[in-house]
């Protein structure tokens, strides 16, 4: 992984340069502006797990029109800022979700719908679903209800926008800081093999491929 916008919205180097030349204020203002733009434009990849996927079409189309707040659906995780997981996650799904989440570019956020990703919901004693998603991936906003109505989903968008604007610590920062913790938990339920393997040095495969 390359360095970039870690921890703050602007580059660390840039911040140092600003502070050296006594422009720490300017840096703060720029950061505020970038945060505001980020909150006003959220690209969503809707990952329909569980029952909740049915609530997403009305949220994004004419009836509830999430686009008026700058929230639009996109087709690929590469372009997305937010992934919506709309219900319980089977182990099999979790594997794909982790893959999708790690393909998204930072800053990235997760929103879950329903009670299943929070505590297992009505699948709490199921043999093949996870109970608390927060142990495996960092959740930014949980919209509760079984199933939440589009109004509640939009409420979740507004909450997320507020958090971005205030510069609160986001899930992806926690994921970077506690990477070992999350990977440990993921391996516990998924077994040893999770793609992509972080032991492989993809750029030097010829020279042994060990990082």
């Amino acid at each position, binding site marked *: *992984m*390359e360095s*970039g*916008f870690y921890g703050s*919205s*602007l580059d660390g180097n840039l911040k140092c340069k600003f502070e050296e030349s006594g422009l720490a204020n300017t840096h703060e203002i720029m950061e505020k502006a*970038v945060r505001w*733009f*980020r909150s*006003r*434009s959220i*690209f969503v990849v809707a990952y329909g797990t569980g029952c909740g996927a049915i609530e997403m079409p009305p949220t994004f*189309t*004419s009836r509830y*029109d999430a*686009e*008026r707040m*700058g929230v*639009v659906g*996109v*087709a*690929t995780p*590469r*372009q997305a*800022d937010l992934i919506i997981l709309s219900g319980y996650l089977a182990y099999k799904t979790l594997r794909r979700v982790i893959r999708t989440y790690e*393909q998204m*570019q*930072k*800053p990235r956020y997760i929103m879950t719908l329903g009670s299943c990703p929070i505590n297992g919901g009505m699948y709490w004693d199921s043999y093949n679903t996870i109970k608390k998603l927060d142990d495996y991936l960092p959740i930014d906003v949980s919209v509760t209800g079984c199933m939440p109505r589009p109004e509640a989903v939009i409420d979740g968008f507004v909450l997320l926008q507020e958090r971005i604007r205030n510069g609160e610590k986001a899930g992806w920062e926690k994921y970077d800081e506690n990477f070992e913790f999350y990977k440990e938990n993921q391996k516990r339920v998924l077994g040893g093999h999770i793609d992509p393997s972080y032991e492989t040095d993809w750029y030097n495969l010829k020279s042994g491929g060990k990082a």
Partner: protein
Amino acid sequence: MIFQIILLIMLAYVVGFIYFGLYRNITARIQGRYGPTVYQSFYDSIKLFSKNNTVSYGWMFYLGPVIMATGAVLTLVLVPVFSDSDFLRSVTSQGNLFVLLYLMVLGPLGNALAVGTGGNPFGVMGVVRGLTRLIGLELPFYIAVVGLIIAANSSDIVHIIDVQKTAGLNIINHPLLFIGAMISMVGFFGASPFDIPGAPQEVYSGPRTEFSGKFLALLMSQGSLFAFAKLVLIVDLFLGGADSLVMLVLKTFTIFVAIIFIGIVYGRYKVEQAVDFLMKLPTLIAVLGLARIVWFG
């Protein structure tokens, strides 16, 4: 001169993005919803420019958006913006319509190279669809342009504008050519029924599938620059150019709204349907217009 080029790019960036905001807004209103603000495309582009980039497919992949942006900027600086003044007409005298027609396809070809390196199947499918469609799109447009060149006896855009001042607007004198060129323009803008390359339900976002963050932002920005350049070109060729900023915005906006309305009403063609259609009706109309010029002057 450098100053004028920078000013022109800034003008095109602002106007282009506001037009795209309007595009989304008007589409939303027609679909019975409130829609995003007019500035939404600005927000999107600034956010994308501030995003991180952690994927890499080698330098050729990232050259794609750069080549596209180069094509867009070159097209922009070669189109005369105002009909009467030399302002913002920095290097227009260096090029003519032939150079412009060549530059208009430079971007898609460069992007095809880049997307091929990325290896994403949806990207490659999008590129193949785009290039196939281009065969159909170019035909009526080129025939229309050849007709205008014969009518004005020159391939210089400034001269074509000047001829319209005395002989009347080309849209009235040569309506068949205008119709043929406009149908291709709908395709060049990526509006329905010709929005095949990036069809969301079929190939995700087509050529853009693998691009993220800053490179996606660059693709969006060049799209708006290019859109502005194409609108000004149509205004120059058929509506006699614009002598002031107000006229420029008025004329380009009229063309733009016409394209939006056509795009909203129609569904999407399949690739072969689109090429089939473009090779028949618009080409026929353009050829009739050309024949009229050749035989009846």
